[in-house]
């Protein structure tokens, strides 16, 4: 499947195409077994997982209430230690700042460590447009860069590709003999990317946490490419969303327990780099310059409402993707956004505009699996419903767009509501339904997709367009109870 034309607006089509793609299903088959089981085992090694989640959420919630102060403090401390902090209102500004920084170093190539924020602002495109070659160094990111695709998962970007596809890709792009041996493929990537690391003058990374108290940025990884990116280069550019800031150094304990366990089922990822400004002694190892690019990109708008504010607590672990029955079936590309899965369905509309991603809040059965696994207890179903309400009210769409709820639907729902809030009317309607349904029910279901009844009764039609309504039982529970009493 190519990425072209897949947008959040076409989720429905994308999902159907994904469901019909047998290769994608082979690629995704390990997701539930592997990540979900690993996560479950890893959280068992913590005494009070629920308590940790509560604490993490409380820290994030408190931080968001005073975000301006924490950002100021972080900036002050980071700059005191030699870093330069840049502010970007949106993706374009962030890209401009970064391109300028790279140009100032006369670099024609940059090594990049995986950053979802970098994906969000389409940094690679911006660099390429200015004649700068971005080299992704995370194995998964490198694979999808070779393939000319976008990531389909926050943590494992190439999860949508099978071993066989990757083997073919290596034959085509790298020119090695075909092999599906994962170790050989990995070592091939190591060798090629080592050469790029040896030449690189500028490195670009993301940030997992930024600590206000010390001005430190923390980046987690397993491969070592982030360490290479931030140790071998002369200039390190770190791009982060403003929500990544946390107040205290000691808070890291909570997040370092939660993030690896939730993301990959590890107690701790292989490496954490805690970087505070620039090196003290010019002879020390490491970059001479550290630039931190702070990105708003509509995040400050999410702060305004207590429901949407939750979105900013996300630590990008990917657990909700792995747990989601929708994501497990359709994969990440169907969401048409750099942020897929349940969290993507709530972040994408808020970052890029609800009117451009109206289908995403509906890309969920509201089963709540995402909420259950979220390490920072984001109530994703609540957020989805909030966004759905905004779509229906038309409040979140542009001023020129009309409300999307149809008049007929409104009247029908009001009538149903009036009728069913009185028990006599409810019983009567059920008796009527029981009689009527004999004409329309098939295989124990009413109003199969496309049937006459689904077109005749307006709300039922909308309901059964995507699901089956079960037939009304021949006797209600109350009637059965009465019969028993007799």
């Amino acid at each position, binding site marked *: 499947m190519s990425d072209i034309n897949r947008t959040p607006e076409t989720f429905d089509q994308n999902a159907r195409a994904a469901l019909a793609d047998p290769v994608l299903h082979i690629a995704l088959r390990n997701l539930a077994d592997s990540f979900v089981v690993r996560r479950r085992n890893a959280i068992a090694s913590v005494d009070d997982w629920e308590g940790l989640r509560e*604490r993490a959420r409380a*820290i994030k919630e408190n931080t968001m209430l005073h975000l301006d102060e924490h950002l100021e403090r972080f900036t002050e401390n980071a700059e005191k230690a030699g870093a330069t902090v840049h502010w970007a209102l949106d993706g374009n500004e962030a890209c401009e700042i970064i391109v300028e920084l790279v140009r100032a170093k006369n670099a024609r190539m940059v090594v990049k460590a995986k950053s979802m924020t970098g994906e969000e602002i389409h940094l690679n495109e911006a660099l390429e447009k200015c004649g700068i070659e971005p080299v992704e160094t995370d194995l998964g990111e490198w694979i999808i860069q070779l393939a000319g695709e976008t990531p389909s998962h926050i943590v494992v*970007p190439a999860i949508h590709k099978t071993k066989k596809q990757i083997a073919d890709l290596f034959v085509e792009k790298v020119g090695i003999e075909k092999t599906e041996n994962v170790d050989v493929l990995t070592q091939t990537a190591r060798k090629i*990317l080592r050469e790029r690391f040896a030449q690189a003058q500028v490195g670009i990374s993301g940030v997992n946490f930024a600590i206000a108290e010390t001005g430190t940025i923390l980046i987690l990884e397993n*491969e070592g490419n982030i360490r290479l990116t931030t*140790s071998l280069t002369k200039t390190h550019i770190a791009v982060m969303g403003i929500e990544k800031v946390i107040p205290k150094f000691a808070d890291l304990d909570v997040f370092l327990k939660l993030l690896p366990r939730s993301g990959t089922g590890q107690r*701790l990822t292989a490496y954490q780099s*805690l970087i505070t400004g*620039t090196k003290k002694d010019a002879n020390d190892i490491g970059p001479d310059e550290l630039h931190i690019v702070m990105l708003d990109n509509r995040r400050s708008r999410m702060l305004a409402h207590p429901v949407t504010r939750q979105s900013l607590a996300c630590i990008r672990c990917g657990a909700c993707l792995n747990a989601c029955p929708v994501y497990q079936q359709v994969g990440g590309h169907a969401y048409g956004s750099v942020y897929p899965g349940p969290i993507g369905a709530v972040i994408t509309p808020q970052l890029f505009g609800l009117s451009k991603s109206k289908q995403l809040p509906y890309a969920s059965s509201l089963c709540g699996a995402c909420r259950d696994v979220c390490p920072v207890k984001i109530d994703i179903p609540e957020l989805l419903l909030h966004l759905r309400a905004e779509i229906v009210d038309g409040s979140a769409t542009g001023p020129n767009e009309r409300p999307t709820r149809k008049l007929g639907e409104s009247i029908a729902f009001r009538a149903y509501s009036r009728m069913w809030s009185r028990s006599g009317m409810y019983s009567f309607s059920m008796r009527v339904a029981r009689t009527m349904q004999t004409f329309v029910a098939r295989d124990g279901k009413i109003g199969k997709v496309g049937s006459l009844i689904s077109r005749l009764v307006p709300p039922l039609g909308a309901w059964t367009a995507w699901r089956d309504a079960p037939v009304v039982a021949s006797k209600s529970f109350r009637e059965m109870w009465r019969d028993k009493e007799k």
Partner: protein
Amino acid sequence: MPFDASRHEPLNPPEPSSALSGDSIVVLDAFMESLELVGAKCDIVESEYEAADRLVAIVKDLSATKIAISDSELVRRIVKVAGIEAIEDASREELFSSEIGITSAQSAIAETGTLVLESGAERHRLVSLVPPVHICVLPARSIRGSMAEILELADTDAHRTITFITGASRTSDIELTLAIGVHGPGKLYVIVIKDQ
């Protein structure tokens, strides 16, 4: 929210550090166990002489000839005792062709099997990263129980880069299959010296 996080203390209050006695035996065992869980090899030795013997054995095992070391005094001494030829302050090119990198660590975390490397104390950022094998020698008394203790002690002004290392470099990017040694070392050996 149920409570104000800023008023709460870290979950694991730091325990007083101690030399090897009582609690520290437990900590040492936990450290070794955690290292095994992440696939690292850990040896506990009684003295620097024993550490040197162990080092010779590992180098011989890997039949390595090109070895880079950090500027740690401890590492210098042990390499000298072992009679191993090693390059200190290796250039980038030398590092890229080295087979083993030997460093110390400023502390370690027992609960996760994590090495803590502080940039202000030792030039080990590249030696511990670039060669395919990393050997870390550290005194037992520097091992702490929990992450919370390490965070409590961290001095981010003195050490502008603090690196936590837990096991070898790894990835699951291809069909979630584990592969070791992507960009960093594929093998991690830890030698803990008791008498320090």
